[in-house]
């Protein structure tokens, strides 16, 4: 009985995500998340979701994305937990990632970053 308790945060993360420690999708810290334009026709509404899912739904918007890291910061949750919650919400069709119009090679991406930074420098 004198064993030290495990970090409550760890236990919390495990319980909060329904006992899973991995997300179903490979989401990055900077993966952008928006509310789905066409929410699924099901009985599951934000009101009936688990608390963390409900909070993510309450924060996300249809008009303008937030990254996984931003969601984690605003909701004070570890990014690992947000990944799992957002993966589930994506699987169920409640949230999406914005779809870029066309693919962009890394070189063009770097060029665009460079242009943007140079515009800030003047």
């Amino acid at each position, binding site marked *: 009985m004198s064993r030290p308790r495990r970090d409550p945060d760890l236990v919390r993360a495990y319980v909060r995500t329904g006992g899973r420690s991995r997300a179903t999708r490979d989401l990055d810290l900077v993966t952008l998340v928006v509310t789905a334009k066409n929410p699924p026709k099901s009985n599951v509404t934000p009101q009936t979701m688990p608390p963390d899912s409900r909070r993510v739904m309450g924060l996300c918007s249809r008009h303008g994305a937030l990254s996984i890291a931003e969601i984690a*910061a605003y909701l004070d949750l570890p990014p690992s937990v947000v990944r799992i919650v957002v993966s589930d919400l994506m699987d169920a069709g409640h949230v999406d990632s914005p779809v870029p119009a066309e693919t962009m090679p890394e070189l063009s991406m770097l060029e665009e970053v*460079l242009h943007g930074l140079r515009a800030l420098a003047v």
Partner: protein
Amino acid sequence: MGSALSQSEAVDYVAETVTRSVKLLVAGNFGVGKTTFVGSVSEIKPLRTEETITEASVGVDDLAGLDGKTQTTVAMDFGRITVSAQLALYLFGTPGQRRFLPMWDDLSKGALGALVLVDTRRLDHADEVLAVLEERGVPFAVAVNEFDGATRYALEEIREALDLDPATPLTSVDARDRATCVRALITLVEFLFHRLESRP
């Protein structure tokens, strides 16, 4: 639904036209000015997120199980710059120590590159950060954060002290000064661009 937010500021959403995101790391040891740097260039009030990790312990048998490992909370400060109508750049202040390796995996995956901040009063502390980046294959540039009262050295002396590759860009910044921070980021991204462009 009540207030969902625990950080009480208004939410700064990414512009609706933005569909892509990329990240750069601002790496360096504790107290080197990462948070100040991120705050100087970010268009949003810098945000903080915390992750609980299992510290990579040196010389300890991992098979000993949970009790033999140490759980630590690592904080990351990050900011955002919308660089075009379509693209958001995120900057993550990244703790340099090797014991935060689990965090590094997450941060370095998909990162375009890193700007390493160094302090001339503690140059030896940069070795660990540089080694971790090299191991992970994250391309980087180095910026000396010029603290008030710290001895100024010629950049060439610092390059030698850090044993940097001749191709690695080395600049100096004042992490409190936005213009110098933006210039350092430009230096890094120019380097990343030419490096990729010249690849066969």
